[in-house]
């Protein structure tokens, strides 16, 4: 359920980008999902396979990369990877740490095929 609503948001964002780029066929969408994003990769892939063809062509690929959660300590600035959801600074034991990466689903890039070269640069 949740994966579907995320994929819906993703497709909407990609549509806007393609429109802003003057159209074309979407070949690949690269997405990063963190361990704390609440996304199960398999379910996300399945939701994408189900929903993307209705919006883009069925040849549109999803490249989904799962990234670890990293954080920075607010006390001593130590940067570390969160293992086993342990959110205490391993250096100074502070409990106030800020997540840098891994708590969201991120659209990284969109690869677009277009028939015409833009601005007539190449031919």
């Amino acid at each position, binding site marked *: 359920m*949740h994966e579907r609503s995320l994929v819906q948001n993703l497709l909407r964002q990609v549509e806007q980008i393609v429109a802003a780029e003057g159209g074309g066929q979407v070949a690949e969408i690269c997405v990063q999902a963190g361990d704390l994003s609440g996304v199960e990769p398999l379910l996300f892939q399945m939701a994408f396979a189900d929903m993307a063809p209705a919006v883009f062509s069925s040849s549109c690929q999803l490249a989904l990369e799962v990234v670890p959660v990293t954080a920075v300590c607010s006390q001593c600035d130590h940067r570390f990877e969160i293992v086993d959801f342990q*959110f205490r600074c391993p250096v100074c034991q502070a409990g106030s740490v800020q997540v840098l990466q891994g708590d*969201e689903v*991120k659209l990284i890039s*969109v690869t677009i095929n*277009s028939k015409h070269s833009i601005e007539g640069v190449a031919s």
Partner: protein
Amino acid sequence: MNQRTIIVQRDVLADQKADAAVERKRLGRRGTLVINLLSSPGAGKTTLLEATARHFAGRRSMAVLVGDLETDRDAQRLAPLVPVAQLTTGGACHLELPLVQRGLKALGDPVVDFLFIENVGNLVCPASHDLGEHLRVVLISTTEGDDKPGKYPKMFRTSQAMVITKLDLLPHVPFSVDTVTEDALRIQPELKVLTNCALDGSGISRWCDFLEQQHQQRLAMYHEPAGNR
């Protein structure tokens, strides 16, 4: 054929988060603390709200938006006590901001001290959706087992307080308040931990004191210093 790759690097939920931030500011500036209440089904969210409404009656104003998949049973329970709007998601497992805004409009966008949003009973998906709240509170009842924080880390990570409910049942269930607290603090070291028992009302005044204190602390940033408007 021309192929190009556009680098985006954008949170898929960026639009929703931005909308939620606008709503948070709007309500914060007029003195409303918005509280998102989350738990698994039946942990005691509505019961806690009933007790909160009784405690605040005549002293503090509040309103409730209550989310469920179906029925308006929770709204009916709360209606004699406070202004309440039922949000039915028709099957969706969590609330999203547009539903909350519609409910708020249905209530006439009231100016209150506390606006509670009782989320759909679910420890997973609601964690990923910002509803414009200032405070996120997760409830866990003693009958659910004390191993839940580690199993649903995102919910506990994104909350600022945890209320352990149904304390009266402790003698009957294998549940340790210390174990659940330790597990939750590992994930969110800054979590405020409270306990409550609906039967004798113990815990309600501490809970309401906590809310008053949060109202002061979290809304302070919206009071612009005089002469700087």
